[in-house]
């Protein structure tokens, strides 16, 4: 997966994501879901038929969120996932996204939820808000945050790119998604960033690749512009 949160010169925050998964059948199961309360859209997400969690979602006029896989470095710790899930009753990572979309008051509250509530296994949560500076990548361990990486537009850090590796470490030499996305965002520039140019960045190979199922672009301050598109796989 690749998630990007970015801010333009006017302080608008944009959020985009590619969801990668090596099962082409998921393209035929992808759907947008509007979760309604009293007939109103409480939150919106993109998911797969049969799956109750969310990896991508938007709470209108509050925040947007996406999740990217964070692989465990030590495979033999798998039993901790079992203990975490069933003995400690922790949430799957995609259920916490849904709970946050349902319950969080605003961007700050969402970041608190997604950072602190224990989950079954690690993940990267990327969150965008409605005010300038409201963008963050949360690197999660089971019990809490391993790292919080916010936008810092006053110092020129107007975007953050997260793929599937800790941002403070180099990605594997064979994976160029981060590098290509960074270069494309720098070439686009803060003046030109918007949902359309963000989509173009997410469409560049290998950011968009043979296992990309869908791309979503969204901006919590402009909830009607939420857009997901299913990708043709090569």
């Amino acid at each position: 997966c690749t998630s990007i949160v970015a801010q333009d010169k006017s302080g608008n925050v944009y959020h985009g994501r590619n969801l990668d998964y090596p099962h082409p059948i998921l393209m035929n199961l992808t759907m947008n879901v509007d979760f309604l309360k009293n007939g109103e859209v409480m939150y919106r997400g993109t998911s797969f038929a049969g799956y109750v969690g969310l990896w991508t979602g938007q709470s209108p006029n509050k925040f947007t969120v996406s999740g990217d896989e964070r692989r465990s470095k030590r495979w033999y710790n798998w039993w901790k996932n079992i203990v975490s899930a069933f003995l400690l009753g922790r949430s799957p990572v995609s259920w916490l996204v849904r709970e946050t979309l349902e319950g969080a008051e605003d961007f700050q509250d969402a970041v608190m939820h997604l950072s602190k509530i224990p989950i079954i296994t690690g993940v990267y949560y990327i969150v965008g808000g409605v005010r300038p500076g409201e963008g963050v990548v949360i690197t999660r361990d089971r019990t809490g945050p391993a790292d919080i990486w916010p936008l810092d537009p006053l110092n020129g850090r107007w975007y953050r790119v997260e793929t599937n590796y800790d941002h403070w470490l180099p990605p594997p030499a064979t994976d160029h998604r981060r590098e290509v996305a960074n270069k494309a965002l720098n070439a686009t520039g803060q003046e030109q960033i918007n949902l359309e140019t963000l989509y173009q960045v997410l469409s560049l190979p290998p950011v968009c690749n043979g296992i990309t199922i869908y791309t979503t672009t969204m901006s919590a301050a402009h909830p009607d512009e939420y857009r997901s598109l299913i990708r043709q796989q090569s």
Partner: protein
Amino acid sequence: AELAPPTLNISLDEDPEVRWKPLLTVFDKDFLNKAGAQVIDSTVPKWVHHAIAPVVSALEKYVPQPYAGEIRGMASHFGGKISDVILLNFAYEISAF
């Protein structure tokens, strides 16, 4: 070409066991069952799938609401095994190992 996915309205005012019923207005029941089986087959070895099915069913009582109700409802609407729907909903946590 990129395609926009279908949009579904899920009412949180409905009981968890019935709120995902609108899925069947968009997706074919047989297709959903086949697709689910395909994802499981490529994620979990067949012998492991058979071995853990009863264990996963027994774990249903540990799944919190409203997800337990939603998963139970989906299994009932699609005519699938509840253990398979639980497995699919824990796909990320399972694939992590």
